[in-house]
């Protein structure tokens, strides 16, 4: 699956409360995720350039971690830098 620009999209669904293998792509469609465990924070931290599509509650939570989040594909602005690498490191507590 890809967006209109041809960027691959990985779709996550259901309950992700326990560590498991996750599909990877530059864009993650997590709009069908019902529960997200804290373990996913580490997964996202290792992939700082990933973009996540999510519902409102999950967007709020992931945005607080420095993850680029959008409600749908049309909102994605490829190439723009929402959070710099140093700002992301500060948010993650890695600075």
């Amino acid at each position, binding site marked *: 699956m890809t967006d209109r620009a041809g960027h691959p999209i990985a779709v996550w669904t259901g309950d992700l409360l*326990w560590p498991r293998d996750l599909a990877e792509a530059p864009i993650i469609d997590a709009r069908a995720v*019902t*529960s997200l465990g804290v373990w996913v924070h580490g997964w996202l931290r290792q992939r700082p350039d990933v973009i996540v599509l999510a519902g409102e509650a999950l967007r709020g939570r992931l945005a607080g971690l420095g993850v680029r989040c959008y409600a749908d594909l049309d909102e994605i602005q490829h190439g723009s830098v929402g959070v710099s690498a140093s700002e992301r490191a500060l948010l993650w507590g890695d600075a």
Partner: protein
Amino acid sequence: MRLLIVEDEDAIRTAFARALATGGTEVRTAASLTEARQVAADFHPEALLSDLKLPDGSGLDFASECGVPFILMSGYAAFDDAVAALRMGCVDFFTKPVAIKDLRRALERLNHRLRSDGLQVVEAGAAGLVRVQAASVGLVRGGFTCRTLVWADAAQAQARYDEIQGILPGEAGRVVVAELLQALPAGRLVINRGEGWMTLWLDGAVDWHGLEAERRAGIEAAAERVIWRGDGVLVECSDD
């Protein structure tokens, strides 16, 4: 009564299983603690007969994990071992070789305790939670369900989570239980589940301000109330 026998010597294990599977007692066996935990996950024993020293650990430690009445046996028992076992609630302690008739008498006493004992209050101070002594599943007096989840590694933690899916009150409950089970590599989680509410006690010291700070935030976001203590954490959830 569901009886789990843990004994690494094949001949003894077989003989005990054959002799004790009478009068309504259902028996399962295991030759090691690893096997015993696998059997217990499905069988949910109400009582335990175990060797004290097993190839992969202590029968006394396993009995503590199970939280059911237990009898221990040992060919190498010292007085201190027997005292430690009895302090942990052991119904009886035998030095091998042990006669079948003595085991049967001990199991009769154990069965009597099983049928007459009810709830045991643990951590009655701040937590006030109840752990069922006689059984680990099922509805008990007071109209609420008690479960004690014990795990020794991540795989067991997830297995415990899968076992109790049916009693978790919605997404908030699932999030809280999953995060608590992942907060410690090995631990014990006591759950009291009633009409519209659930209270949990995670027994153990977690560095909630360090690596687990995000997990703490996740639990607080999902729960109604959380009390953080040095020796554990109390969490209250509702079905709303």
